[in-house]
């Protein structure tokens, strides 16, 4: 097959505005309402992932940003919820009275958490009133006084006995600031030291003995009194209990009855009752402070321990529980325990437990940006732990790393029943799959949202409808069908394939919104195709600084690109580069030289470490092709050098290999190459030309260079036949081709390309006699082989009109 010159129809397949609804009704409740068109495979995966309730079947939705991953997920969840509803619960943390550092987590049916919190506040309020009243009653005062009087009487009696004993022995029992002392008396007064010293020794000894004995008795009495005080305190405490019980019983029982269907809550209320009874005094001394108003630790009698910390208030939000984790830090995910500073100390209690995203998503769905998640320290391991254990455990990071050794709260873990959906680019998913063996155990469903989708009427219409809906949601100007058709064409360009259309709705919407701005600026009532085209151009222009400089350099011949004439060993190659979201094509001169040698093709890019592996691979393939095709039965006695001229950075990709091969063959055959052509394509070892990327940008890049110099009707580009389907060229290029001012040739083999670019018949390989490209190559390679074997010697002779010419020794004139 020979090269095929492409017609206008081959160069672009435009969207027909007539195929779009004239008024483009806005999207209904169909899938497109969520901004999703096509993506059936991804949709099926998401639907399965959302529907299945097996543990470990969490979901990773991967795909490029702006492709509707999130919208698709939300849409599927919404549909699932509409069919199956949601089972959510309120969760509260309450004080654990026997182990205050381990707050209790209680589950309540949705909406009853707030009620429970209010009930507990009311209970405390009531108890304060009731207990205060009970303890201020005359009955209580009388009983306390009776007990106190009884014990005081017993204590006094015991002391009185000691005092009487002392008195009998003529001793005085005296109270001093340091305690009690005993001294001998004389005439009702304490004996002076002088008088005591004046007593006979026997009397002094008697007195000292009496003092010792009374001292001993007093000591025993005081010890007994201490025991009595304890007994007294116990009796008063018991009285307090019974008084409190009367007040508490009714109030707590009323609550227990209200929550009888929740055994855990009833159990907690029992603990509350026991604690209130045990600590009734707190209710008597704390009347001025409202419960919960004082921070923990501020008041010595803080009734905040009866508070209810509602960490998940499912009833507050009746909408579908889809929680989007915008900032998935460790603490935002699993929750945290706050502290308050008081007098230099950090204090906390169960009231300062803050629920995280997992708490909020419990019973529902959590959507997390995978990249943000793995970038946040410890967030990914924390999420895995939660999913593996199916519980949310709030752990302080400081405690995890032993930064602080103080007692920290250890709240009860809360059972986790949420579906987690990670959303991210493919490489993030691959990274996790490759490096975390637990990833596959937890995220067993991976939905792959495509970058593009098949181009069909229904996808075009669906996409147009989605875009129109977005405009309506933003209260923007509407877009006419021609404008949307133009935008869809742009979507096809972004897909890089005329049979497909991009799925990146966001990029299209960005263009549309810019077009809307332009339309509004010119006072239009709707967006026209020209607005869209202007927006596309403007966007491209913003990214075109480097491209402009390069074009200028080409026009000034600083970058040497010939677009006319012929030259041996020189070919216009084509390359493409990316600036932001915009791709630009440009031409690059490829040159090749050849000489006698040992069969080597020197890739100067590779030798200078400016060639990437794909480029090197391409050169090696063409080397192999060359040797296998032309030197099967003789030594491949040639050395050739290849270079992409005036490139100063890394060259990657194998799309230049066809151009390199043509340049090389031109050099070996000593056949000039037409410089009006540029070529792109990769080759295999058999000489087939293979598809390359960025074909539209490459063609347009060379077209722009030629157009700037003036199209002469001979210029054109050779592309692989396999790329023809990808063509979606600019309208000016298409027009130029239609007018015969520019050409696009599709080639299937190297031979096709050589013929077009040299204008010389290809001939048959191995036939040295004909003046064809292959004939010349055959002849040259044989000569080199013979030279290598030493069978002939070459010599240069001056030939009039031809300068110095190389001859075989025997043929020289």
């Amino acid at each position, binding site marked *: 097959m020979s090269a095929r010159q492409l017609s206008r129809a081959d160069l672009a397949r435009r969207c027909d505005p007539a195929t779009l609804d004239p008024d483009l009704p806005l999207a209904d409740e169909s899938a497109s309402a969520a901004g999703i068109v096509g993506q059936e495979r991804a949709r099926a995966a998401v639907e399965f992932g959302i529907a299945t309730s097996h543990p470990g079947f969490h979901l990773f939705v991967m795909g490029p940003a702006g492709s509707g991953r999130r919208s698709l997920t939300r849409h599927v969840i919404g549909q699932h919820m509409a069919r199956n509803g949601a089972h959510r619960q309120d969760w509260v943390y309450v004080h654990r009275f026997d182990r205050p550092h381990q707050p209790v987590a209680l589950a309540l049916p949705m909406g009853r958490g707030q009620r429970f919190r209010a009930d507990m506040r009311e209970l405390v309020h009531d108890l304060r009133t009731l207990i205060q009243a009970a303890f201020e009653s005359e009955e209580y005062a009388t009983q306390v*006084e009776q007990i106190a*009087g009884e014990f005081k009487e017993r204590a006094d009696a015991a002391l009185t006995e000691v005092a009487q004993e002392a008195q009998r022995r003529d001793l005085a029992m005296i109270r001093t600031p340091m305690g009690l002392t005993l001294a*001998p008396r004389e005439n009702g007064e304490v004996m002076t*030291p002088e008088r005591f010293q004046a007593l006979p020794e026997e009397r002094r000894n008697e007195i000292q003995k009496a003092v010792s004995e009374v001292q001993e008795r007093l000591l025993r009495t005081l010890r007994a009194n201490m025991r009595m005080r304890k007994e007294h305190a116990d009796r008063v405490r018991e009285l307090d209990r019974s008084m409190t019980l009367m007040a508490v019983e009714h109030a707590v029982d009323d609550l227990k009855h209200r929550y009888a269907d929740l055994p855990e809550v009833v159990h907690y209320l029992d603990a509350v009752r026991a604690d209130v009874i045990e600590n009734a005094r707190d209710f008597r001394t704390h009347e001025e402070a409202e419960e919960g108003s004082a921070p923990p630790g501020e008041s010595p009698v803080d009734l905040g321990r009866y508070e209810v910390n509602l960490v998940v208030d499912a009833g507050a939000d009746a909408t579908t529980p889809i929680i989007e984790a915008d900032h998935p830090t460790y603490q935002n995910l699993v929750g945290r325990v706050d502290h308050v500073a008081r007098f230099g100390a950090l204090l906390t209690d169960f009231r300062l437990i803050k629920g995280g995203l997992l708490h909020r998503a419990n019973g529902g769905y959590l959507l997390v940006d995978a990249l943000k998640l793995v970038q946040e320290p410890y967030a990914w391991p924390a999420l895995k732990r939660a999913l593996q254990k199916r519980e949310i455990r709030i752990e302080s990071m400081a405690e995890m790393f032993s930064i602080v050794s103080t007692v920290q709260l250890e709240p009860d873990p809360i059972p986790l029943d949420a579906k987690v959906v990670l959303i991210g680019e493919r490489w993030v998913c691959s990274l996790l799959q490759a490096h975390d063996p637990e990833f596959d155990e937890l995220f067993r469903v991976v939905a792959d949202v495509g970058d593009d989708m098949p181009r069909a009427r229904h996808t075009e219409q669906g996409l147009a409808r989605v875009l129109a809906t977005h405009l309506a949601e933003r209260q923007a100007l509407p877009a006419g069908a021609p404008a949307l058709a133009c935008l869809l064409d742009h979507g096809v360009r972004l897909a890089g394939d005329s049979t497909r259309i991009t799925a990146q709705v966001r990029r299209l919407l960005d263009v549309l919104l810019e077009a809307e701005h332009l339309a509004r600026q010119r006072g239009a009532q709707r967006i026209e195709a020209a607005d869209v085209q202007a927006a596309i151009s403007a966007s491209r222009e913003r990214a075109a600084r480097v491209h402009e400089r390069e074009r200028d350099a080409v026009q000034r011949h600083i970058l040497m690109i010939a677009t006319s004439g012929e030259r041996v060993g020189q070919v216009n190659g084509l390359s493409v580069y990316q600036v932001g979201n915009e791709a630009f094509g440009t031409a690059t001169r490829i040159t090749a030289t050849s000489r006698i040698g040992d069969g080597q093709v020197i890739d100067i890019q590779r030798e200078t470490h400016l060639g990437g592996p794909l480029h090197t691979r391409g050169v090696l393939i063409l080397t192999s092709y060359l040797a296998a095709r032309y030197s099967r039965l003789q030594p491949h006695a040639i050395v050739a050098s290849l270079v992409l001229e005036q490139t100063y950075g890394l060259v990657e990709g194998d799309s230049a290999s066809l151009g390199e091969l043509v340049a090389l063959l031109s050099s070996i055959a000593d056949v000039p190459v037409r410089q009006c052509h540029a070529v792109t394509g990769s080759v295999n070892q058999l000489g087939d030309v293979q598809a390359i990327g960025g074909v539209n940008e490459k063609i347009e890049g060379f077209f722009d260079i030629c157009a700037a110099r003036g199209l002469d009707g001979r210029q054109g580009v050779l592309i692989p036949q396999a790329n023809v389907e990808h063509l979606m060229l600019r309208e000016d290029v298409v027009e130029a081709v239609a007018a015969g001012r520019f050409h696009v040739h599709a080639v299937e083999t190297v031979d096709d390309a050589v013929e077009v670019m040299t204008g010389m018949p290809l001939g048959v390989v191995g036939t040295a006699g004909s003046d064809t490209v292959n004939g010349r190559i055959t002849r040259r390679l044989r000569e080199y082989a013979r030279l290598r074997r030493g069978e002939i010697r070459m010599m240069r002779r001056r030939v009039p009109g031809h300068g110095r010419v190389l001859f075989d020794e025997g043929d020289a004139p």
Partner: protein
Amino acid sequence: MTSGMPPAVSAQLQALLVDAATAPHVLEISTALARHLRRALDVVYVENAQALRAAALPFAQVLASSAARWAPLATPDLERAFRVQATRLREMTGRIALQASIQARLRVVRGVPAVVALELGTAGDLTLVGSGLASAVADPAPSPAISSRVVVAAVDDSPAGARTLAVAQDAAQALGCHLETVTLPPDSGWLTLEGQACRLLVLPRPRVDAARLAGLRHDTLLVG
């Protein structure tokens, strides 16, 4: 403690303190009375002379209420303890006076408490004596919740008795208690108040001597 010119004799209420344990209770009652009666408060702390004498004895020992055994007692130790106690009571008096917005001062005298209490009658007509005067062991002050709400006035037919009744009425009003009256036996007879719940006992000073005063188990206001 407030300062300035000492009030006139009749404008004072005297309160006798013998230790720190009963001081809050005595000061609470005396402050309430002084405020109600619009009198300055003259707090008198008595350093017990009997205790000093006992401490001078060669075998003197002391047993603190919280201690497990007897310890040697020396006069310098006791003197130091008196000074410390006086400082504490001065601070306490100043604080309470400030809170109650009354004039108050504390002075220190040395003597036998019951005798000093009676001698104070020459400097004022109302003297409050804490129950600790008689008690061998300092009792903790009863909490307000379990205090009796009764003021007992012990009166006779004398003018001092009438004056006592009037003061007792004021005291009951000041303390938020109700008043009960008992009649003192004629001549030198004495009353028995064993088991009587009583926040304050009001007595005519002429009917009280040192021995009787030392034997009383209630906070007592001497009138006259």
